[in-house]
């Protein structure tokens, strides 16, 4: 009888073309997403006098540099305009479909791929962006790569990879009201560390994962990289299949039926061996915020910032001191007493329709005490949010409703947090300077960002949800 096998193993072996003696395998790539930042790779390819192998499997999105305000007037910054133009030229020369600045399907690559049905269970998906792990939510093997590998995929539609170890993260129980996928993700990262899953492909499993919507699973898999994981995935199920049905690029009719049969078997077999397993109880997770400069500097909202003076390990004490100093937080400060300067709702982590609904549920009928920006995950999400009246809720609360792009998550389109300012953010990285030089970032869920906005300080969303329809 065949050995029980994990989802990771099944996906890997379906894509392995050949294997070298040293263990590196040549893998077939089903989908390749490129963006403005992929220009290095196009240059590599041209320098070798080569052309693209599979333009039909390559899709481009303008997201990292695009303006989120005043887009209709074109791009004012000449350097940024050149980045977007460069993508247009490279993709048209190579015959790649581009969801460009003025395309109604434009948005953040990790929102657009799934939305368009380009992301499917069983696929191997790469992109020159670390948050490509997002697509694993569909039971795909999806990971971020650098420019040399992007060039290799453009030229050959394949990649040399070493097989990662397999790790299963079991999240059992049921999350309480006010706790979402972002809180689960931050709880996992805090528990295993920002490098806890290094060298591993993670499978998320358990009742609390099965209960998540596709949007929630995408948030979770998106954050796999913040635990150091090579990729993250959730086995496909009825929730996945229902999401995919009738998406533009998803299979249709008899092909869809055939796919369903295959996809249903894309699960880890009972008894399959993992290199590592860890377990969490979703019911024990409270809403979480980060206080420091890596995503594992995360604590429940009712906690206090750490105090280096009480830390016995001198190396760790120094780390805590420097992180608190950068963040401008006194040691031992109660987290809910930390005042904020602005909020940001956006990014490939938390800007899908469900995220906007969760934030709007808190903001409805309330006014934000600080300024803030809401950048929907895609132009389609923007349209839907406007149709549902969510944009009006954001505007009435005093927040700015903008166009879609990576925006203030990485700050390279000009949407930045000023030096020394503190931002409650639905994004994925609280690294020093991530949202702009000197910017201070607190990561949390969209509902928690909304709670911080109406409170003017980090706040527990739970009391604000009392009596509200969710």
């Amino acid at each position, binding site marked *: 009888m065949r050995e029980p096998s994990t989802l990771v193993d099944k996906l890997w072996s*379906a894509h392995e*073309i*050949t294997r070298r003696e*040293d263990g*590196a395998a*040549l893998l*077939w790539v*089903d*989908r390749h997403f490129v963006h403005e*930042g992929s*220009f*290095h790779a196009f240059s590599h390819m041209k320098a070798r006098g080569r052309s693209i192998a599979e333009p*039909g*499997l390559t*899709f481009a999105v303008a997201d990292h*540099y695009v303006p989120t305000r005043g887009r209709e007037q074109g791009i004012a910054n000449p*350097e940024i305009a050149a*980045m977007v133009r460069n993508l247009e030229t490279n993709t048209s020369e190579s015959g790649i479909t581009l969801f460009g600045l003025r395309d109604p399907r434009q948005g953040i690559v990790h929102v657009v791929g799934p939305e368009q049905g380009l992301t*499917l269970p069983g*696929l191997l998906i790469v992109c*020159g*962006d*670390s948050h490509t792990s997002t697509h694993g939510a569909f039971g795909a093997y999806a990971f971020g*790569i*650098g*420019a*040399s*590998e992007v060039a*290799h995929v453009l*030229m*050959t539609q*394949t990649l*040399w990879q*070493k097989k*990662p170890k397999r790790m299963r993260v079991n999240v059992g129980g049921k999350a309480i009201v006010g706790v979402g996928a972002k809180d689960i993700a931050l709880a996992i990262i805090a528990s295993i560390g*920002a*490098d806890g899953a*290094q*060298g591993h492909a993670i499978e998320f499993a358990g009742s609390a994962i099965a209960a998540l919507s596709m949007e929630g699973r995408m948030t979770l898999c998106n954050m796999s*990289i913040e635990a*150091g994981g*090579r990729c993250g995935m959730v086995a496909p199920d009825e929730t996945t299949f229902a999401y995919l049905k009738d998406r*533009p*690029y998803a*299979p249709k009719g008899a*092909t869809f039926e*055939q*796919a369903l049969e*295959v996809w249903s078997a894309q699960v880890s077999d009972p008894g399959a061996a993992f290199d590592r397993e860890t377990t969490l109880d979703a019911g024990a997770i409270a809403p979480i915020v980060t206080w420091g*400069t*890596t995503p594992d500097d995360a604590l429940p909202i009712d906690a206090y910032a750490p105090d280096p003076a009480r830390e016995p390990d001198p190396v760790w004490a120094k*780390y805590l001191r420097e992180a608190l100093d950068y963040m401008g937080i006194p040691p031992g400060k109660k987290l809910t007493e930390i005042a904020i300067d602005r909020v940001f709702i956006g990014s490939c982590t938390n800007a899908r329709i469900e995220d906007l609904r969760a934030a709007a549920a808190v903001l409805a009928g309330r006014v934000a005490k600080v300024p803030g920006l809401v950048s929907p995950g895609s132009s389609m999400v923007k349209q839907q949010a406007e149709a549902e009246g969510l944009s009006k809720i954001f505007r009435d609360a005093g927040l700015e409703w903008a166009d879609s792009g990576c925006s203030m998550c*990485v700050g*390279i389109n000009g949407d930045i947090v000023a030096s020394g300012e503190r931002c409650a953010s639905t994004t994925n*990285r609280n*690294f*020093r*300077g*991530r949202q702009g030089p*000197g910017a201070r970032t607190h990561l949390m869920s969209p509902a928690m960002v909304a709670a911080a906005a109406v409170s003017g300080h980090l706040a527990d969303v739970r009391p604000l949800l009392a009596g509200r329809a969710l």
Partner: protein
Amino acid sequence: MEKFVRLTAKACPLALPNLNTDQILPARYLKWPRSAGLGRVLFQDLRYDTDGNERSDFPLNRQVWRDAKILVAGRNFGGGSSREAAVYALYDAGIRCVIAASFGDIFAQNAVKNGLLTAILPEADAAEVATAIAGDPDQLVSVDLERQTILRGNHIYPFAVDPVSRNQLLNGWDDIDLTESNRDRISAFRSEDLKRRPWALPAKA
């Protein structure tokens, strides 16, 4: 790609944990082509204050380590973003080897494609090397990839490296050439796969 076999050079201690790629190369420089000189802005926000003056306490700013070719870093070096320009910045600033207890997976993969060695030492050994060179900045450190050892004075530290990366660095292999030699295998896989997984194609393509 340039081979890496062995290297004897000055080593600069940078013993901060979690130096992610946003610290190695801030995102605002990602628009730059490599020819713009990414080495100049390596560790920009750690190396310079907001007025653009060098921070005297940042090790790479010390005269003795300006020509260092080796960095001895804290654990989880190069985590975060997949930006390969972080590797370009290190390489173009003259760095050929980073020693640390652990590395971000994508960073390590990008490093090997560019001839930069990521050598993994146990945390205690990495800390010992960092402390020793901080105390005697002029001493040279030798990294031998064939033997997988780091030599400092009379001390020998065996280091770990992914065997695939080791192979590639020792031989200066180019991925594309290797892939080309498998052209027939790729086409055979492709035609078989189209029959096996017709649903895997984008519906409109």
